């Protein structure tokens, strides 16, 4: 079997035992990336990748023990700071920016002997659901190059689907890991808010942003999360809780678990293909001994409106730091005010400007109570929907995305239509809960569909157990896009 078709966990363990060399893995990834046409990479430096791989092999040759990701080729969403690679957030305003330090998650991957293949394309500043908001070009879905990969971590999902890396990191603010994972037919995990340090993650909406993992299988995504999770003194919102053995949770029995199916996730707007696939997925979970329980999540329909007030408000504040003074680019102008204004108008793309304007508006005098304060209260109600549901059930299951991947360009002219694509991922984000998307029965067109599993805060072990159990019986198991 080709090296990059094997599972992440098996490959890491084979490198640790000396059965596979990190350099062979790196060469396999480099060869694939060099002939890749998905547009998933913003930064790709084979010399750097080879040097990292050689260092891993030399470490083993010296008799030193290797880490949990020994030699594993990994890609990083370009919103994570890397000390040896540009970090642009797919924005012109950060063109050429070289961070002076690694994000904590990145540093932890290095310490676990991972090998980086490059920085991955995304929607600018992680704002988007199709990856079409990148200043550096779109990403094509590996299953159908005329379609979007989803977003905002479109490059991270596409790179795994196309077999360019065994795993990738992404970030999820409102679904930006789970939704592209669903649309690209890979596993994508958003952990509990506070599980992974955000130090060195360029902030979009700080109360929602969370780093998470992509892999071709559930165990791979679990192994990656085991490495990056845990408290970091440099992020006061990263919580000191024990990291469970999430790879070990894969394979544990799920019989007897109660799974909530929210009625509101199956109402209008859900494509027939997705409805059928997720219906079948729920039946197979029942077949594994789970009890299926209908639940009510009455505030689901307000999640999109709530999110696009809360997240834009936070982004308008976070993105104030890009002012032409400290980072990367500046448009020279006659005075300070106009330098700020010109730099930001030219440096930011249309969606980022739209969100900054919306966020500034909802925070401005006279509108704060009607929009921002109101949305924060509805956020509380959305959290309570989950609290109530989890009194009855162990997990919530449903579709990740209301549709399969749509054609490039189809929603670009209508931002609101694009926002509505996030309807099933936003509630868990607003409640800070862990969620995973696992490939389910593909649609009639052969395009991937994802089953979303959401569990209570800090219960990633149960989430991985369920995701792995479903993966073993999913009709999507082993399916890969055809390679050019």
């Amino acid at each position, binding site marked *: 079997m080709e090296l990059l078709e094997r599972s992440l966990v098996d490959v890491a363990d084979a490198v640790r035992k000396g059965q596979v060399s990190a350099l062979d893995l790196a060469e396999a990834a480099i060869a694939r990336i060099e002939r890749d046409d998905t547009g998933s990479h913003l930064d790709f430096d084979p010399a750097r990748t080879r040097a990292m791989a050689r260092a891993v092999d030399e470490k083993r040759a010296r008799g030193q023990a290797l880490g949990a990701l020994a030699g594993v080729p990994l890609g990083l969403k370009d919103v994570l700071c890397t000390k040896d690679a540009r970090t642009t957030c797919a924005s012109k305003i950060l063109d050429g920016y070289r961070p002076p330090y690694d994000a904590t998650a990145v540093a932890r991957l290095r310490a676990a002997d991972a090998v980086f293949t490059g920085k991955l394309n995304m929607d600018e500043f992680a704002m988007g659901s199709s990856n079409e908001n990148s200043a550096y070009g779109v990403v094509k879905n590996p299953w159908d190059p005329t379609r979007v990969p989803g977003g905002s971590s479109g490059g991270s999902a596409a790179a795994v689907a196309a077999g360019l890396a065994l795993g990738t990191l992404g970030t999820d603010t409102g679904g930006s890991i789970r939704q592209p994972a669903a649309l690209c037919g890979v596993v994508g995990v958003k952990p509990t808010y506070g599980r992974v340090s955000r130090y060195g993650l360029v902030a979009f909406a700080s109360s929602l942003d969370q780093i998470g993992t992509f892999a071709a299988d559930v165990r791979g995504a679990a192994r990656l999360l085991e490495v990056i999770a845990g408290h970091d003194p440099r992020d006061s919102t990263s919580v000191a809780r024990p990291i469970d053995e999430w790879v070990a949770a894969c394979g544990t029995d799920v019989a007897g678990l109660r799974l909530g199916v929210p009625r509101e996730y199956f109402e209008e707007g859900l494509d027939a293909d997705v409805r059928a696939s997720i219906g079948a997925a729920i039946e197979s979970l029942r077949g594994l001994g789970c009890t299926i329980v209908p639940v009510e999540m009455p505030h689901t329909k307000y999640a*999109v409106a709530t999110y*696009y007030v809360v997240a834009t408000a936070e982004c308008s504040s976070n993105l104030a730091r890009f002012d*032409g003074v400290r980072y990367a680019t500046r448009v020279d102008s006659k005075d300070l*005010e106009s330098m700020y204004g010109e730099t930001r108008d030219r440096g930011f793309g249309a969606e980022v400007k739209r969100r900054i304007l919306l966020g500034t508006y909802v925070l401005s005098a006279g509108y704060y109570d009607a929009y921002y304060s109101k949305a924060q209260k509805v956020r509380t109600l959305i959290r309570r929907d989950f609290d109530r549901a989890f009194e009855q059930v162990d997990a919530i299951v449903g579709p990740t995305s209301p549709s399969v991947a749509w054609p490039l360009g189809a929603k670009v002219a209508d931002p609101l239509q694009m926002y509505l694509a996030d309807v099933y991922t936003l509630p868990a984000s607003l409640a800070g809960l862990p969620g995973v998307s696992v490939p389910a029965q593909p649609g009639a067109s052969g395009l991937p569909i994802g089953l979303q599993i959401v569990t209570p805060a800090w219960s990633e072990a149960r989430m991985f157990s369920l995701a792995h159990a479903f993966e073993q019986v999913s009709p999507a198991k082993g399916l890969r896009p055809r390679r050019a």
Partner: protein
Amino acid sequence: MSAPIDRDQVQHVGRLARLTLRDDEVPALTEQLVKILGFVAQLQEVSTDGIEPTAQVGVDRLPFRPDEPHACLPREVVLREAPETAGGGFVVPAFIQE
């Protein structure tokens, strides 16, 4: 219901956000923001009397860290990525009229 935002207000919000919007950007932005704010207005139908706002999830359990000085990045590294520097600092256009 009147439109929640017009072109002049979009320009005004742009100034608040330090975005010098070009005249040709404003009509489309206004149209999109009217549509988005119209959609967001559905929040008004939710009764939130006596409901506490959520600003952050999970913050009640967060640890303090010791307030101790530690090494920071060298100055030249911090300045390295700036568009213009001089004398160990960031250079900006003049903002005080002589």
